């Protein structure tokens, strides 16, 4: 029985090759998009799941405004290092607490020298105190977790790094010289352990974990801070809420005492709704809740939505074609019913058929995934694999689940329609007139097109916004500007200035790609205002090529420029005074007060993505300006021959800092990076739209084929009565075009709302344009008309005699 049904299923697939191909291929595409998304989600969800003991590990977060992009208070994972002791001493459940260097993301790594080999850059070198392996349950292949970091100047390597550096994991006792910046004399570290690479990604990832001693120190003066990340292992905490409450109380008491020592007023700091805050969050929530950034879930939300839509579109095709096709199978159903078959047996039979098709789709999809995965990995900067996935078992279970859902979704309705055919009606031959399924089918076509048209509109608008951004005036000249990842050093800068073609060498704390915001409260005409301050060297603003709106830029000829003059950007000037040049403001530092004079106003320049507004900013050259730790060394070249000059810069660098490789980036590339995230998103939307639109058109094509076929007789009769081919094409087109038109009307508001939301994410954005809406409508109507006409023409050109003879 089952065998026979399977045979019938295969035969009817072969008989309708084109539709079967559209059905199965479409479903495979929908599934592929969905499974790729699933792989990615699984990957993200697998963060910090590599050991069951990690459930007792927590991250400490403090609420403060340092390093925040908007100078407001935020829950941050970079905390005052004193918090470690606070937790250790006051929380009885804390079994271990460790301090780890903050992930600043400035430098791409440290220079590592082994014996007399050339230095290599190694990424993921983290510094921690001795308790790191008491908190994180890494598996030691060499050495042991108890004693590995007991001695300062020790380092534990991941197996993968040990193999890369030494070719073996038997490296206990060997030494590495680590240089953290270019004129760092270097620290010799002894390898005291090798740990296995965990199978799933880690939010506290490292390649080498050092104990240099930096993280052991706590600044003595209450006014000095060392910032780091803090993790703790707690003894079976059931209720984090209660723990966090006591933590908050401890922190508040501590802040009161600490502020007194720093001669600050608790009530002055914590006012206007500002409150102190310290809490722990489970490690598994850390990856999900990055401070300042969108979490992967939020970033992925549109993608998840889209891939689900794509799957739905392909399932809709499936349902549509299957119900349309069911007419062909009606006779089989009628006959079987009079031969004595139960309805449920019929439903089962047709479900098996759709299962067969979704099975084939699934196989196709696995092949497709293998094909596109490398590109996908490259595009999203991840290392996903299907077969070598550590969660292959979960994946397979998910796939089986997906398979069942798809089969049921795609197969149930058609089976139900089919099994409900009344044998008398069917065998009489009147089954085609039934309206059954037509309403649903039309509804599904509309739904499908709503999705596709929304995509088309979105692409149009996103394209406009992208163009707007890439052509937007940044407020500084990004061409022929290079940023070397290092601090300013006068003697080195002098050497560079001697290279012909180098116009300026300067530094600043704020430049696109590496901006470091420092909040400051100023008093202007008795008013308190919050400003962002940036420290620059004399030449920084000219080398950026900013535009002066009022007054002047800093210059050596003005002695006071290194002491108490400032330049504002437009945003700051708008806050303070329309004509601020020559006026002054003051700042308070404890009991003392300093006065600064405003000498110029420059046009706002961008140093973040276009999603963030430029902060009101004050630029200063202090006597520290040249040497403060900025990690930006700006080089303005006055020739386009960048490569040649950078070679010379490189050789100067090698002479000055032989143990540290030079890293630099052209500002053009930095800007490209800023746009990258957005472009990536848009590329994806474009890809998904193409898929969705082609799936919809394929569906429409197949559906129109069926309708044309079903109406063959009607068409033949009309032709015999004298209808022209064009009239017949119109006849078949009319109903479909009406559907597409309805879909357009529905898509407009949906697209408007969605794209508006997307646009609102940009501080600098275009006005909502109208023409993408019109274009989407015209394109969808024309393309649908063409698609349907292919079939309609065939029907119209058919020989009426033939059609009437074999009705």
């Amino acid at each position, binding site marked *: *029985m089952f065998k*026979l049904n399977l*045979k*019938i299923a295969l*035969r*009817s697939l072969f*008989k309708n090759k084109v539709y079967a191909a559209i059905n199965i291929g479409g479903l495979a595409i929908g599934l592929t998009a969905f499974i790729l998304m699933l792989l990615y989600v699984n990957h993200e969800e697998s963060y910090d799941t590599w050991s069951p003991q990690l459930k007792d590990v927590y991250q400490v977060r403090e609420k403060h405004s340092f390093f925040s992009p908007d100078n407001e208070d935020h829950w941050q994972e970079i905390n005052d290092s004193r918090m470690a002791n606070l937790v250790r001493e006051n929380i009885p459940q804390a079994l271990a607490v460790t301090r780890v260097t903050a992930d600043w993301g400035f430098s791409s790594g440290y220079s590592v020298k082994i014996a007399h080999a050339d230095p290599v850059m190694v990424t993921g070198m983290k510094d921690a105190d001795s308790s790191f392996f008491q908190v994180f349950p890494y598996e030691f292949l060499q050495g042991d977790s108890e004693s590995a970091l007991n001695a300062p100047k020790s380092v534990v390597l991941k197996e993968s790094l040990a193999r890369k550096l030494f070719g073996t994991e038997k490296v206990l006792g060997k030494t590495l010289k680590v240089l953290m910046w270019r004129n760092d004399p270097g620290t010799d570290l002894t390898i005291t352990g090798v740990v296995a690479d965990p199978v799933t990604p880690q939010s506290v990832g490292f390649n080498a974990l050092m104990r240099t001693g930096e993280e052991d120190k706590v600044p003595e003066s209450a006014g000095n801070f060392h910032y780091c990340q803090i993790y703790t292992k707690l003894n079976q905490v059931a209720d984090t809420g209660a723990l966090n409450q006591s933590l908050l109380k401890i922190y508040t008491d501590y802040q009161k005492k600490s502020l007194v020592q720093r001669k600050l007023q608790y009530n002055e700091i914590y006012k206007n709704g500002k409150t102190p805050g310290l809490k722990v969050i489970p490690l598994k929530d850390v990856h999900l809740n990055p401070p300042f950034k969108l979490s992967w879930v939020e970033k992925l939300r549109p993608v998840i939505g889209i891939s689900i839509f794509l799957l739905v579109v392909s399932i809709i095709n499936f349902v549509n074609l299957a119900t349309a096709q069911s007419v062909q199978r009606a*006779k*089989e159903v*009628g*006959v*079987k019913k*009079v*031969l*004595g*078959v*139960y*309805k449920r047996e019929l439903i089962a039979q047709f479900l098996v058929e759709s299962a067969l098709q979704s099975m084939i789709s699934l196989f196709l999809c696995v092949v497709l995934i293998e094909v596109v995965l490398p590109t996908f990995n490259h595009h999203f900067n991840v290392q996903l694999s299907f077969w070598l996935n550590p969660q292959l078992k979960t994946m397979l279970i998910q796939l089986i689940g997906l398979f069942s859902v798809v089969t049921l979704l795609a197969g149930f309705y058609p089976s139900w329609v089919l099994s409900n055919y009344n*044998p*008398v009606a069917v*065998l*009489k*031959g009147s089954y085609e007139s039934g309206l059954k399924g037509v309403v649903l089918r039309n509804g599904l076509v509309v739904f499908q097109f709503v999705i596709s048209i929304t995509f088309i509109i979105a692409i149009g608008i996103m394209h406009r916004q992208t163009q707007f951004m890439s052509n937007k005036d940044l407020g500084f000249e990004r061409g022929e500007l290079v940023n070397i990842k290092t601090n300013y050093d006068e003697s080195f800068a002098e050497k560079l200035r001697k290279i012909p073609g180098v116009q300026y060498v300067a530094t600043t704390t704020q430049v696109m790609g590496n901006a470091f915001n420092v909040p400051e409260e100023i008093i202007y005409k008795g008013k308190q205002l919050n400003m962002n301050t940036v420290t620059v060297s004399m030449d920084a603003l000219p080398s950026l090529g900013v535009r002066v709106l009022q007054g002047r830029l800093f210059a050596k000829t003005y002695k006071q420029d290194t002491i108490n003059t400032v330049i504002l950007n437009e945003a700051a000037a708008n806050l303070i005074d329309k004509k601020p040049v020559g006026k002054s403001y003051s700042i308070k530092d404890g009991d003392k007060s300093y006065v600064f004079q405003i000498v110029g106003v420059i046009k706002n320049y961008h140093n973040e993505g276009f999603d963030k507004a430029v902060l009101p900013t004050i630029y200063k050259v202090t006597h520290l300006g040249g040497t403060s730790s900025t990690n930006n060394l700006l080089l303005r070249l006055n020739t386009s021959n960048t490569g040649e000059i950078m070679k010379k810069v490189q050789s100067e660098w090698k002479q000055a800092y032989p143990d540290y490789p030079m890293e630099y980036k052209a500002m053009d590339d930095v800007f490209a990076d800023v746009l990258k995230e957005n472009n990536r998103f848009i590329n994806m939307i474009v890809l998904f739209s193409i898929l969705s639109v082609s799936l919809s058109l394929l569906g429409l094509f197949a559906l129109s084929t069926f309708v044309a076929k079903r109406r063959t007789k009607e068409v033949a009769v009309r032709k015999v009565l004298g209808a022209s081919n064009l009239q017949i094409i119109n006849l078949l087109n009319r109903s479909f075009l009406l559907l597409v038109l309805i879909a357009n009307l529905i898509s407009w508001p949906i697209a408007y709302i969605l794209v508006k939301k997307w646009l609102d994410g940009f501080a600098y954005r275009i006005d909502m344009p109208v023409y993408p809406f019109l274009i989407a409508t015209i394109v969808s109507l024309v393309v649908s008309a063409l698609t349907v006409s292919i079939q309609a023409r065939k029907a119209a050109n058919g020989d009426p005699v033939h059609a009437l003879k074999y009705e």
Partner: protein
Amino acid sequence: MIQLNNIEKYYANKGIKNYVLRLVTTTIKQGEFVSIMGPSGAGKSTLLNIIGMLEEPTYGSYEFLGEDVTSLNERKRIELYRNHIGFVFQAYHLIDEMTVYENIEAPLLYKKVGSSERASRIADLLDRFNIVAKKDLFPNQLSGGQQQLVGIARALAAQPSIILADEPTGNLQSAQAEEIMTLFKKLNQEDGITIIQVTHSEKNAQYGNRILHIADGVVKEDVAVG
């Protein structure tokens, strides 16, 4: 075998009852070969469908093998289809995706007949109807007459006690029609299968042993033949 009492069938259209059958009362005994005749639209097919339990009468009672079947549940009805009733259609209604062999096999599969028994029965039928050479062909590769032979073979496969045929030769040329009618007669006489057929042809009706004449939903005449 079949007992119809005051069977009525009407379709209500805009509040008006359009009677298709009126007070049909008749008995058909085991082993009879009945032909239903009458003008187009008289209600012949409707009557046959009611007998075949494909349609329900609006009024009246119907006993099949001594059992009241006017409102039978699906399970019971399907049991009757599997074991007692074979249908033959004017348009053959073979399943296009199945070969001749599989078409004949289908009812046996539903009846859960064992595979060796199945093979022998099918071989027997193929042989008897002279279509052994065609067993692996699909319906669209056969002539109309051949298709109807397969249709009848399929109806017989489950060894029913009654065959219901609605204009079985309606689409066939007279030579082929004769062949089918001879076959019916043989089945009726040699195997004792009850046959009820609808036909427009006086000639075909002569193969049976009783004719019911219907006009406007009423049995006008009930005559014995031969």
